[in-house]
Each structure stands twice: as structure tokens, then as C-alpha cells.
């Protein structure tokens, strides 16, 4: 989709045009669903996240400022915030005081050979807090500082969760190959 077309649809959405809203949703569905799928434990939760995120997006579309970033980035942030709200509902994020974190060794060749859906399933099996930190850091590129602020935990705790996530995934990947 061209940038001009997207801007035209966004302008129509600002005036509450339902057709334009549907059009925008369908244009961004694949992009948005892929984000929600990483944080959700299953498709149904991903659908819930997506629904709530789009409703929030349409309601606050007038606050979107193109000069601050592109629309995809803005929508991605809304979806991630909604996903974290969902995770917070089913899990409590406790702060752990950890000074040093052991970085596990992960064999990249194992990952390459593993099916994408299987890897997603492994990530979903992580404890909720570890799952959130792992996806935020590894997939969506958040720093530990950003994660700590987002989840209201310390940076050390964020590092611990990342290390724990990597370790668990490595063990499971090894188990699959064996």
C-alpha cells in the first residue's frame, strides 16, 4: 500500500468513516496479527488483543501525529501495550535482584533447522513474564531499560528473564533434536 493511500484512509478514519476503518484494518491485519501472535498464548488470545488494540487505535486516531513516526510503528506500540496488559492480567511481574546474568550458549544451526511454528510454540511455553521480556527484547528490539519501564521491573530482572528464556528455549530445542 502506498503512503498516500494510507494517509487518505487515515484521514477518513479520523472522521469516523466505518468503511475507511474496515479498509485500514484489513490492510494492517497481517502486520498486526503477527505482533499479537508473539505475545499471546494462542490464536484466540491474539484475536482478543488485536480487537482491543484496533478499537483503541480507532478511538485515538486523532492523536496520531505523523511527524513523530510512521503509522505502523504507532500501531505496533498500541498492540504491544495491549499484549502486555493481557499478560499482566494472568501473571504478576515480580522484581528479582540479580547482579550478573549468565548468557547461555545457543546453537544457531538448531534454530535454523527448526520449524517457525515450533519455535513460536516454545516461546509461548515460557513463563508469562519471561515470555514477555524475551519477545520484547529478542523480537521487537526493546532495550532492558525500556522493558523495565514498560513492565515496572528492574533492568536486572529484565536481564534475568531474558537469560532464563534463552536457557529454556535452548534446552527445549536440544530436546527436539535429540
Amino acid at each position, binding site marked *: 500500500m502506498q503512503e498516500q493511500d494510507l494517509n487518505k484512509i487515515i484521514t477518513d478514519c479520523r472522521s469516523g468513516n466505518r468503511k475507511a476503518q474496515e479498509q485500514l484494518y484489513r490492510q494492517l491485519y497481517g502486520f498486526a*496479527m*503477527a505482533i499479537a501472535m508473539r505475545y499471546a498464548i494462542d490464536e484466540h488470545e*491474539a*484475536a482478543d488483543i488485536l*480487537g482491543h488494540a484496533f478499537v483503541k487505535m480507532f*478511538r485515538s486516531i486523532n492523536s496520531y501525529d505523523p511527524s513523530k513516526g510512521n503509522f505502523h510503528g504507532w500501531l505496533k506500540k498500541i498492540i504491544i501495550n495491549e499484549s502486555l496488559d493481557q499478560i499482566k492480567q494472568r501473571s504478576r511481574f515480580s522484581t528479582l535482584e540479580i547482579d550478573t546474568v549468565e548468557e547461555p550458549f545457543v546453537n544457531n544451526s538448531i534454530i535454523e533447522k527448526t520449524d*517457525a511454528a515450533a519455535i513460536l510454540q516454545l516461546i509461548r511455553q515460557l513463563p508469562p513474564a519471561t515470555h514477555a521480556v524475551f519477545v520484547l527484547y*529478542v523480537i521487537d528490539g526493546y532495550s532492558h531499560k525500556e522493558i523495565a519501564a514498560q513492565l515496572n521491573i528492574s533492568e536486572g530482572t529484565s536481564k534475568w528473564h531474558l537469560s532464563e528464556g534463552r536457557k529454556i528455549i535452548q534446552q527445549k530445542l536440544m530436546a527436539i533434536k535429540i
Partner: protein
Amino acid sequence: MNTSSPYDQLLAAKLDQVPVPDMADSIWSAIDTQLDAPTDASTDTPKNKTARKIKGKGWYGFLGTITVVTLLWWGYNHMNHTPPQNKPPQNIQPATKDSSAAADTSTVINPVKKKNMPVKPVIIKKDSTSLHDIPIKGAVVDSVSKQTLPPVHIDSPLHINNVPLPHVDSVRNNPPPGRKKGKGVKINNDDYKISADKGG
């Protein structure tokens, strides 16, 4: 943004390959429904909410007022009905008894004994105000004649025989039977003498 390792990049690339489920229509219908909701919710303005709040509070206030009024009414009726109708009338001090208050010296009136309720004797000082001290309009009050009036004793024949005495309203201070009403009637010294004879 973090500095992602090759491991992270590999994982991110792998997750991008995950197929997206075909749930676009069902999710859109949910979004469509939720987007319609604000139009209904928009009618629920803060003003309406406040009005509803006040209405609710008003209802509680109304109930509270009714409860208080009911309690007051019940209490008032209960207190009004408590004066025992069965109590012997001798418990009520006859108005004639007050006539002794006009004496110069302090007089001790022995109260009528009540069951299980000791009552201290009431000392009426000579300077205490009684209805008899109030001069009746048009009547010439002679202090000498007032002093000669003997006090009425409680142990009257009626009282001894447990004959119920007439209910005397001390406030109104009705004159004893056979005595002329003071209101509008000129009272002279002879009336007092007659009264003293009957009371004695």
C-alpha cells in the same frame, strides 16, 4: 533499541515466517460492535452520571428521613402512652396541696409512698413561686388571710379510704370543688374562708 545478536535475529526471522490465522472477519465484527458501543456510552455523559449519583443519594436521603420520622413518631407515641392509666390516682399530688406553699416558713410535704420508688421529701421554700402566689386579677389578696389558711393534709378521708381522687391538673390549678372559679368572678375574703372550712 537493543543490539541484537545473530541468535536474536535468527529467532525474529523465524517468527516472521509463522503464518497468520485467517480470523480477520470475526475480529472485524468484534471491532465493529465495540466501535458502535461508544455511541451508546456517549449518552452516559458525566453530567448524567452525576445526576444519577445525586438521584441515588436522594433516594437514600429520602429513606433515611422516613426512618427518622417513623422512629420519632413511634418514640413520641410510646412516651405519650407510657403514663400509666392503671396507676392509682393518689400518686398525683392534688392541687390543694400546693396551697401550703404559701406559708411563711419552709414546709416539708411528705410524698405519697410509691412501690419500690423512694421519693425524697420536697421542700418548698417560702419564696418559691406557686400559682397561688400569682394574684388573681381583680381579687384583693390579703396577706393575713393567706397566712391563716391551714395547709391541706394529704391524709384526707378520701385518701385513706383509697377512693380515687379526681385528676387535678396542677398547671391549670383548678380550685377545689365547691369553690368558685377565679376567672371572671370576683373573689373576696369570704371565699377564702369558705374554702378553708371545706378543706379542713
